[in-house]
């Protein structure tokens, strides 16, 4: 699962993707969302100490790992997957570039949910290319 949040933790974008050809039922989706949101305090701690953009592994659950990434303007990415760190880092950097292109739209108000179709499509492509085994 992939989430983009603002500085005040308002969700801007959310993408669910399937791992290992499991179908997710709604209970697992809820669990995934809960796990991601509950790792936000660790995210904040790492934010204060680190100067980097990619915050590496924040938390580890039974099967999945949660990775964090911050953009320069304080938007937060959260990725929950079982892939390696390198792949997730590449994914986050590409997603960051695409997000900046969405931001550049003068008609897009900063802080509103992202509804651009092309952004959605690009993220799906990225997930298929990078995050699938």
């Amino acid at each position, binding site marked *: 699962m992939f989430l983009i949040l603002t500085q005040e933790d308002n969700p801007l974008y959310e993408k669910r993707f399937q791992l290992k050809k499991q179908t997710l039922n709604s209970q697992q989706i809820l669990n995934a969302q809960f796990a991601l949101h509950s790792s936000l305090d660790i995210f904040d701690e790492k934010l204060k100490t680190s100067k*980097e953009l990619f915050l590496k592994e924040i938390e580890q659950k039974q099967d999945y790992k949660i990775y964090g990434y911050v953009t320069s303007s304080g938007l937060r990415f959260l990725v929950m997957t079982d892939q390696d760190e390198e792949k997730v880092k590449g994914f986050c950097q590409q997603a960051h570039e695409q997000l900046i292109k969405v931001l550049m739209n003068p008609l897009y108000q900063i802080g509103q949910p992202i509804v651009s179709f092309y952004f959605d499509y690009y993220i799906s492509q990225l997930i298929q290319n990078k995050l699938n085994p």
Partner: protein
Amino acid sequence: MLERNLRTLRPETNYCTFSYLFSEYMLLLKRKYGNDYTTINQKMEQLGSNVGIRLYEVVCLRERNKRETKVLEQLKFIQGIFWKHLFGKQADSLERIKDKNNEYLIRDENPLLLRYVSEESPISPANFIVGILEGVFQVSGFQVSITYQFKSDDKQSYYPHTIFILQFEDQQN
């Protein structure tokens, strides 16, 4: 449009074009709000902060910058690299006001936008620059209030310098 590379620099725009565009914008505001100077200045600051947030993201991407957590480093980045992207040269100086730990000055002689505007007018493009700075600091997590002043120097420059005064709130850590 979405497939263009963000990392390649765009060619610079014409100064006349930009100043024409900006002067038309100021005239629009004047027509709309008349003599309500505070609203006009606020609108310019809002526009500035929108521009500032977006430009800050792009500049950070291009310069491969990591985030800054300290105030002074952030200010140095703004004075050097960011100002260069905005106006083509670095800001002239960054100083700390004596006896006050949280106040800093950014001084620029003859900034681009203010070249043809007299400094006594109550509406000024300096508000736009203030808006840009406010936007940048707001998203990097620092609380700051910014004002500007014109100060003439005893040395041989013909026009007064523009000074942006940044007052930071007390930060923990």
